[in-house]
């Protein structure tokens, strides 16, 4: 009936937080395979129980525990309160889901060696995922268990860029190392999503699945391949989705700044070399006989009279 094989054992410890007058909250988890979906709670004498401690610093500290739920199951959540001032014989505790108090969850907790233990078993299906908190009427302490499917790592929100005719690799990775049953990729078209079928389209798509991450390779890109690609991690309880945006550019895009820079370089080089040739005759007066591009231009600008004067001066020099 009960399968103790699925026990979540986590030793997350926060060693820096233990202090003397601190309210200590401990939690206990028992999980069982939800093969039969009866909601009758009966896991108390389960031998496969592992405990996990979460310590809070100060009365008003709020602890948040994230639990990854992959399959529908029953979970017992346990809160352990210690170091309460005045040590009353009993206190009242209740559970809330997503901020709303769960009906009939309030119960009185008796003191047990200076500890107050509040526990409850929940049967979790897809619609039951959420934030469960144990609260106490007399105390501000609170522990929240976030029950959710494992999350996918957020890719940079900028789109992946590639070129027509090129290929591109889109990747989705889970934050922690859980293994979904499988991964599916979809292409989003305005309102609906279309499943990408590799066997039907092997020359355009390739999908590689590697446990907690997956890669979609799109080959022979065209403009229509731009858009949103949705990766879906299929868990028993509920799929987890994320998306990657792809933008396909044509080769003329980067050519524009490239051509601009090349034109600038050509202009600069021409200017530099021209300027040097122009400055040469001024520095080197004796080279008036040379056929300089710049001196011809300057002589044209200066007018024919000047030219005549220069020429006669040269001729006078050469004749001894």
């Amino acid at each position, binding site marked *: 009936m009960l399968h103790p094989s699925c026990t979540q054992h986590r030793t997350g410890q926060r060693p820096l937080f233990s202090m003397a007058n601190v309210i200590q909250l401990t939690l206990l988890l028992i999980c069982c395979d939800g093969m039969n979906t009866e909601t009758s709670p009966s896991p108390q004498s389960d031998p496969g129980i592992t405990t996990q401690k979460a310590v809070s610093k100060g009365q008003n500290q709020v602890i948040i525990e994230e639990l990854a739920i992959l399959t529908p199951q029953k979970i017992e959540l346990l809160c352990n309160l210690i170091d309460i001032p005045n040590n009353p014989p009993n206190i009242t505790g209740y559970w809330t889901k997503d901020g709303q108090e769960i009906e009939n969850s309030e119960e009185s907790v008796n003191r047990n060696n200076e500890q107050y233990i509040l526990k409850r078993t929940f049967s979790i299906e897809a619609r039951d995922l959420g934030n469960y908190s144990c609260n106490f009427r007399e105390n501000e302490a609170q522990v929240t268990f976030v029950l959710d499917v494992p999350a996918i790592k957020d890719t940079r929100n900028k789109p992946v860029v590639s070129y027509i005719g090129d290929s591109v690799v889109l990747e989705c990775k889970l934050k922690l190392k859980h293994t979904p049953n499988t991964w599916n990729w979809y292409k989003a078209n305005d309102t609906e999503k279309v499943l990408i079928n590799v066997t039907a389209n092997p020359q355009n798509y390739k999908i590689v699945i590697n446990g907690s991450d997956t890669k979609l390779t799109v080959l022979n890109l065209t403009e229509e391949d731009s858009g949103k690609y949705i990766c879906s991690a299929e868990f028993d309880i509920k799929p987890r989705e994320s998306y990657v945006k792809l933008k396909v550019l044509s080769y003329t895009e*980067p050519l524009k700044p*490239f051509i*601009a820079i*090349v034109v*600038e*370089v050509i202009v600069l080089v021409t200017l530099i070399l021209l300027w040097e040739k122009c400055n040469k005759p001024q520095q*080197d007066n*004796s080279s008036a006989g040379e056929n300089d591009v710049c001196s011809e231009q300057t002589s044209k600008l200066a007018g024919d009279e000047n030219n005549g004067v220069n020429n006669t001066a040269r001729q006078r020099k050469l004749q*001894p």
Partner: protein
Amino acid sequence: MEKPQKTPEEQQSSPQMVAPDGGWGWVVVGSLFVSSALVFGLIRSLGVFFVEFVQYFGESAQAVSWITSIGLAMQQLMSPISAAASNVYGARPVVMMGGFLSGLGFILASQATSLLHLYLTMGFISGLGWALIFTPTVASVMQYFTLRRSLAMGLGFTGVGLASFAFSPLFQYLVEAYAWRGALLVLGGLSFNMIACGALIRPLGTPKVVVKAENASKLNKCSSLLSRIYEGFEISLLSHRGFLTYSMAITLFNAGYFIPYVHLVAHSRHIGFTEYQAAFVISVTGVADIVGRVASGWFSDLGRMRMQHMLVVWTGLLGLSLMLIPVAVVYSGLLVVSVVYGFCAGAMTPLAFAVVPEIVGMERMLGALGLLQLIESIGGLLGAPLSGWLKDYTGMYTVSFIAAGSFLVLGTFVTMTLPYFWSCTAPPPPSPSQKKSQDESIEDGLLKQTLSSNSVPEILCPSDDIPYSDKE
């Protein structure tokens, strides 16, 4: 006649003697600034592309990092060829060709379909282009300055530091907007700007080998070609004691110099600092590096101490600070040591180049630079893998930092054995006429031959001399 006899010697020595020390020289410094930014600043910021390459080609990070290794190796190994080419054709055409090649390499890389293509284009072609750019530009700056040489070099090299700051966000933006192919294409265009930098390098005189070749025009082609090669590559330097000592010292410096750039971040994370703290250490080191270059250049030009002594001071301090890095376990201590390291590393760079003409003379400086880079590449190729191996073997970075520091201190000691080191004043620079008598008896004989003919005045004298001689 007096004039034809004097002018050939004058023409040979005057290009090297005339150092404007200002004026157009500052434009050449600007050209060095842009060139060093577009060569070394670019190489340092290529990390952005590596992430893309790893994902696109599915190769390991180590395989991708070979791209920069090949590029840097090409830049250093091809330096003698670049120096020889400048000796034959002058610095300007060589640098312009280098700018074209480095841009071409990136443009071809944008079409790559495998990692091998990237090795060939970004590694070999661009690396060759960088070699053709760097050595002649540095040599030209040194030709243009004598009194303010170190300051000019320091200012020119600040391009590297500033570019590393500016290029990382720029490259990130280019990759996000155009993917790595488009970004490489744009980078190729940017590299073409070095063609313009090359155009700015106005020659100060005819290139060495051209002048000597004109005098040797009577010899048959084969041995003139050999002597041209001998001249171009400055192979005569291999028997020069000062040069050999200095090249050994530089090799040792090179072995230790790059190790912190590779390991400082990893070391900071290793001892427990956060990513941002480690990145801040690197930024602080970079700023100290830039300041160190300019400050050291300015101070050395004041002439209080000889350049070789200053070089010893900076490299000694650098070695010591490297050995102190593992000792600094507190964050503030690490920051202080890193600032000292950055400052000394920057201070050493302009001096390491500016000292070369003092050792080998201005005439052979270009070839010396080329050969030096070739020899020092051995240090670089040995240093980084050795430190990596030491880290793997001992599990900590301590030993590799100490090894790097000891390389530098060893290099300092070798520098102290340079000829004329222990004298208080600089030795007279080896004059061109002395050198001629040492190795070119063939050239000497030819010179006397050509002097008696009338061909020399037509080649070397400006045209206005002819009317005067006709008058007489």
